[in-house]
């Protein structure tokens, strides 16, 4: 399974997090309960879906179970914890937002016809009770309204700028889809009530039951309405204020820590073009990574360590180091020599190659790590370097071989240099799961 494979690649940091089941929004037919449950239990989603369908046919337990989980499981879609720059771009509408297309239609038709099939099957098998059709129609109506609640919740999450009010909590940002779901859902429930009254008693009672139901709802809304309304608006105020003040505090702290300090330094060194360029470059990198990249240089993974080394060399030697990593691994003991060898190769390139750009590419496979450090500089004659020069031979080739890896230097005068580092990985017990 892809999910477990990618989880194994994640660096192990600190204690285990408590795993919580969530409803899956990207693999949902109805509400994502089955997909979320399958992910939580680590079983194929088809089994879970079949389980729900079977238990739904045999007495309806599946439906009740599904509904219960729908109510209590949170959606996996939540307030985005994106980097500030990305979140800001989203809020300003500079990134693509939700665009409902008819992609949902296929699964809906499938689920619909499957549901109808089940209903007909149960009906032919057990006969038609008085309760049967009202219950089926009622379930359909409730499901539609719940679905709309999910949609509204998702829209609220995407939009933290506007005030929340009970109307928006129900309808979301409006649109025909939202209204259709609400109206059809409500109608289905009313029809269910009506059919129940009609099949169980005289037809005249049906109308009265529906009217009585409506009156009940209206009464409830009148008495509880103001209270709900105030609660919701208080909550919304509190939430938006908290979000705003947190954002302001984060932003202020970050600007103070980094940008202000750099500007002060630049003023002090205004006469020195190299220093100014270096400060500007490192500040740019810092701000950019804070705003956009989820790739941090913190934490104990190989990719983070390589990025850290690249930053250090950039700062110390005024070159641009472009780091690309594929896959990642925890920075276990065996990989430290690789990082040190990379640093040595980078320093060599920065000092001797006479170029202002070095590319680092690291690929982490389950069994081995490969890192390539390439520059387009002047290159050198590998045979020609003196034995007492420790750079390449001692710090790179010997170090890698001492630790069970290998290093290869591909270079010739005028053709640039590429250092290829390979290290076997000792498979982790945990990762073999």
């Amino acid at each position: 399974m892809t999910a477990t494979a990618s989880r194994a690649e994640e660096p192990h940091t600190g204690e285990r997090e408590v795993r919580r089941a969530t409803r899956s929004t990207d693999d949902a037919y109805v509400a994502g309960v089955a997909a979320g449950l399958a992910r939580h239990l680590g079983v194929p989603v088809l089994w879970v879906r079949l389980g729900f369908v079977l238990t739904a046919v045999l007495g309806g337990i599946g439906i009740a179970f599904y509904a219960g989980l729908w109510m209590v499981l949170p959606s996996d879609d939540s307030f985005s914890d994106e980097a500030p720059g990305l979140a800001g771009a989203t809020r300003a509408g500079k990134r693509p937002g939700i665009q409902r297309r008819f992609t949902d239609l296929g699964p809906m038709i499938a689920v619909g016809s499957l549901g109808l099939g089940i209903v007909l099957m149960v009906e032919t098998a057990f006969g038609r009770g008085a309760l049967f059709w009202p219950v089926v129609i009622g379930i359909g109506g409730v499901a539609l309204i719940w679905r709309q609640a999910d949609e509204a919740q998702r829209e609220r999450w995407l939009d933290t700028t506007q005030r929340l009010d009970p109307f928006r909590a129900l309808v979301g940002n409006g649109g025909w889809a939202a209204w259709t779901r609400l109206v059809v859902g409500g109608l289905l429930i009313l029809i269910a009530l009506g059919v129940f009254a009609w099949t169980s008693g005289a037809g005249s009672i049906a109308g009265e039951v529906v009217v009585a139901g409506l009156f009940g709802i209206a009464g409830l809304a009148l008495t509880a309405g103001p209270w709900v309304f105030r609660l919701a608006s208080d909550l919304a105020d509190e939430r938006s204020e908290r979000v705003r003040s947190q954002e302001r505090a984060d932003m202020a702290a970050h600007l103070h820590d980094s940008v202000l300090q750099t500007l002060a330094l630049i003023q002090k060194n205004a006469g020195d073009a190299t220093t100014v360029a270096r400060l500007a470059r490192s500040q740019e990198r810092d701000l950019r990574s804070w705003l956009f990249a989820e790739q941090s240089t913190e934490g104990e993974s190989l990719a983070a360590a390589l990025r850290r080394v690249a930053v250090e060399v950039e700062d110390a030697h005024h070159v641009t180091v472009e780091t690309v990593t594929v896959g990642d691994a925890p920075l276990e003991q065996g990989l430290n020599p690789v990082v040190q060898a990379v640093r040595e190769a980078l320093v060599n390139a920065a000092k001797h190659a006479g170029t202002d750009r070095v590319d680092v590419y690291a690929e982490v496979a389950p069994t081995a790590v490969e890192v390539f450090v390439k520059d387009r500089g002047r290159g050198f004659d590998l045979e020609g370097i003196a034995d007492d020069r420790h750079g390449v031979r001692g710090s790179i080739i010997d170090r890698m071989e001492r630790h069970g890896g290998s290093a290869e230097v591909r270079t010739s005068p005028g053709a640039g240099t590429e250092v290829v580092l390979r290290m076997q990985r000792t498979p982790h017990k945990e990762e073999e799961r």
Partner: protein
Amino acid sequence: MTTSVVIVDDHAMFRAGVRAELLGQPGAPVDIVGEAEDVTSAVAAIRASRPEVVLLDVHLPGGGGVEVMRQVGPSDTRFLALSVSDSAEDVIGTIRGGARGYVTKTITGPELVDAIRRVAEGDAVFSPRLAGFVLDAFAGSIEVAAVDEDLDRLTEREREVMRLIARGYSYKEVAKELFISVKTVETHMSAVLRKLQLSSRHELTRWASDRRLL
């Protein structure tokens, strides 16, 4: 040959910078026929001037670069995405939206001209970072039943080409390293681009699904 270009970016200063840099290149390889600052004006500018290549910012008021490509629809104009954001989700999303390549805003003038020329000729442009994203996206196993052999896997050769690009090799260097022609390298790149745009792999869709880029 002069390539007609429209620059779409919401920062006027950046547009001015790119314009100066492109026009300053020797041999006038690029003719800038329009500029735009958001989705609406970009669509209007592209429809009016029918450029060969659009330099398209990923983040753009009105729904992002993807929205521009969606509204312009099928045409002979080709899109090269240009961004300061290195977020994999946005980059992959823009490629899946129809861009023929992705470069970061720190790219040098001559490299940008080269990228524009390649895109105008119908080739794909992969920066080392994009190649890394591609390798990441196509790494890992995939449920065997769900594999579309043509789309969901890179061939061994395509993977080699992508790895060399990620290592910082130019097209010419890749060709030399693998003993193939530059034309063949370009063919492999276009094949990878097609897979990136059409594959239904879960890793690709997961990046895009939150924002409904598909």
